[in-house]
């Protein structure tokens, strides 16, 4: 009972303050696109047999690089759902632009970190470059909009440290071009270990993020042909020091106003901002006020839960911004994972449209532009 009241209060609390709109807007923000995790079911089986606890969370259980089929099935679904303006549903795919170059790192005997761009990663996978071509077609058709999620979904220094330390599981994963990202106090004491790309425990490391952001945004522009207007950090962990580098390179919006700030010792603390808050550089913030993560639990009532999210969001004049990671949309480790999500996504959107016939679909970039135009 107390828990229910608490949840009710929280749900209202995060939606009440700040910028408001009368429009009913749905934004789906999906992190991690372009990043590798486990390359294939075969490798997943090998690592599991070797005793690595891949079933301990839904990311290590299902997440992998998106395939051509993942994209095609998703785009077909998005294209079949139209809002009141006749616009298709669109997913904001927060993308990494690079992955570790395993061969080059091995050649350097783990002394030097090197990365490859995602078009090269796609080329190494079974569908080849056609996956990237499919993604670009989806952008062209306004079904997906990549935004910047970082250069790679790891902190290169911390990851290299772990590899050099020679942890058995990490070395085995490396041999299979896998990013484990499992919490293991023996290898990394940091919160969310080396996957939190912008966490740090010394100032020199904090400064190294400048070139990572700059290179990352430049690669983003070259890969996709446009600049990213918004940003969300891997694991939502970043300090405000990143803002200047993001602003200098054209980023005007922060997707996640609930920010986890590095404490400088590898830990984090939470910092909350409201809808429409702005910082020194005029970058605007908004919040994710809904969750659609079917991969986390196949038995949970995601449809009911999102409708509940929508109730609170729209009650307080806020768009519904769903947190929905890439892991939900991929079938490379288990095809049922993707199918389950797509089945639920149709139900969720149709139910939302039934309840809110004037629902409008937007990307994060469009939401930011709309907020910037209407804020005062």
């Amino acid at each position, binding site marked *: 009972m107390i828990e229910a009241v608490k949840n009710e209060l929280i749900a209202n609390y995060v939606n009440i303050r700040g910028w408001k709109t009368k429009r009913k807007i749905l934004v789906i923000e999906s992190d991690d696109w372009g990043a590798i995790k486990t390359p294939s079911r075969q490798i997943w089986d090998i690592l599991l047999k070797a005793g690595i606890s891949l079933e301990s969370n839904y990311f290590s259980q299902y997440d992998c690089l998106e395939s051509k089929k993942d994209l095609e099935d998703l785009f077909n679904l998005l294209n079949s759902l139209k809002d009141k303006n006749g616009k298709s549903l669109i997913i904001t795919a927060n993308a990494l632009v690079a992955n570790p170059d395993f061969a080059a790192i091995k050649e350097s005997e783990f002394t030097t970190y090197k990365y490859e761009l995602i078009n090269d990663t796609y080329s190494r996978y079974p569908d080849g470059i056609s996956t990237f071509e499919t993604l670009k077609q989806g952008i062209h058709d306004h079904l997906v909009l990549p935004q910047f999620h970082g250069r790679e979904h790891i902190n290169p220094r911390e990851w290299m440290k772990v590899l050099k330390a020679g942890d058995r599981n990490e070395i085995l994963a490396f041999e299979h071009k896998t990013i484990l990202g499992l919490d293991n106090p023996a290898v990394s004491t940091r919160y969310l270990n080396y996957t939190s790309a912008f966490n740090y425990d010394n100032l020199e490391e904090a400064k190294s993020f400048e070139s990572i952001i700059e290179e990352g945004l430049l690669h983003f522009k070259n890969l996709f042909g446009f600049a990213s207007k918004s940003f969300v950090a891997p694991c939502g962990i970043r300090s405000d020091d990143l803002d200047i580098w993001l602003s*200098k390179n054209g980023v005007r919006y922060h997707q996640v106003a609930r920010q986890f700030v590095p404490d400088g010792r590898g830990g984090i603390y939470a910092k909350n901002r409201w809808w429409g808050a702005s910082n020194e550089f005029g970058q605007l913030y908004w919040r994710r006020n809904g969750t659609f993560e079917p991969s986390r639990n196949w038995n949970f009532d995601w449809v009911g839960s999102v409708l509940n999210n929508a109730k609170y969001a729209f009650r307080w004049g806020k768009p519904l911004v769903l947190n929905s990671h890439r892991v939900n949309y991929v079938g490379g480790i288990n095809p049922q994972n993707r199918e389950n999500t797509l089945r639920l996504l149709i139900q969720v959107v149709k139910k939302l449209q039934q309840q809110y016939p004037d629902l409008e679909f937007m990307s994060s970039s469009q939401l930011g532009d709309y907020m*910037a135009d209407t804020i005062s």
Partner: protein
Amino acid sequence: MNIPGWRSPRKLIVFESDDWGTVRSNSLTALQKLSEKGYPVFDGAYCKYDALECNDDLEQLFEVLHSVKDKNGNPAVITANNIVANPDFEKIKAADYQQYYFEPFIDTLKKYPAHDRVFDLYQQGITTGVFWPQYHGREHVNISRWLKALQNKKPYMLNAFEYGMFSLHVPMTPHYYNAYMDALDCDSEADLVSTIKIVSDGLAMFEKIWGFPSRSFIAPCYIWHQQHEQALSAMGVNYIQGLPIQHQPIISEGTKYHKKYHFTGTSNFKGQRYLVRNAFFEPTPYPNVDWVDNCLYRIQTAFRWGKPAIVSTHRVNFIGYLYPENREKNLHQFKLLLQAIVKKWPDVAFVSSDELGDLITGRECLRQTIRQ
């Protein structure tokens, strides 16, 4: 907006250009430094291109204005709405931002490197009939809000201040659309009282600088209060330039306004006449418009209803101090527009804002008297 209001069979065209005299972006170096500090200064047209007018800006604009003649043999004239003063940044800093100081814009001109002949050129423009200053305000900054921001050590305001600037690109202040430029906006009764004094002092400065009074006024950011009109009326301002909508500050609510609607020729409680802009030539802020076409169409519409065409064209369009190509590109377009106007309407007459007001009210025209 062309249907109600004063009519005349004469084809009258006014070019109203705001902001002359005010500082804006200081230099390319300043913009570069601010950009390196992370501020998106190159993203906004005003922030990137607008600056205190330099010698070349006036010379080249005058040449274009002289390139056409109206039915009376007069060249095209720009009503240059003049900000008569700028903040004295050095003194304000020395006072640790606790006190505001200002200087006449003719003193600011001396601090800029390509501006030594600007005031002489103005005089020349007045004599030859291509330029005619009118009053736009004492300074183009909201002093009370700006000082407060500086006292609160807002970094982006302090950074801009270091380069002699008081406003950066609008998106840096998303919750404050006019970004400290709205000089007459008021957050309190005290602000209203002080802005009334400021706007009156500035009008007196105008006469001292130019040697003649300004009979018209245009408020910064189209935001002003009825009480400002009253003070200006007492000092001889007979005409209020503007858009169809006046934003009158709702005192104590800060950046909230009563909207008041005006038509050309209608008058207020003091008998001041409104002159309402009904055409635009603004290529720098809005580059994706065919401005020659758009402006000609709007002039034609005005003439169809027997209305004067009042064309809004801000200083930023003619400034090449930071980027010469901005000035050159737009002057080329502006020349095409002027040529098209005299060709299409050979009986056109180019007049200044106050001259139009004088025609409406039957007063003697000050500009013509001074030119003689």
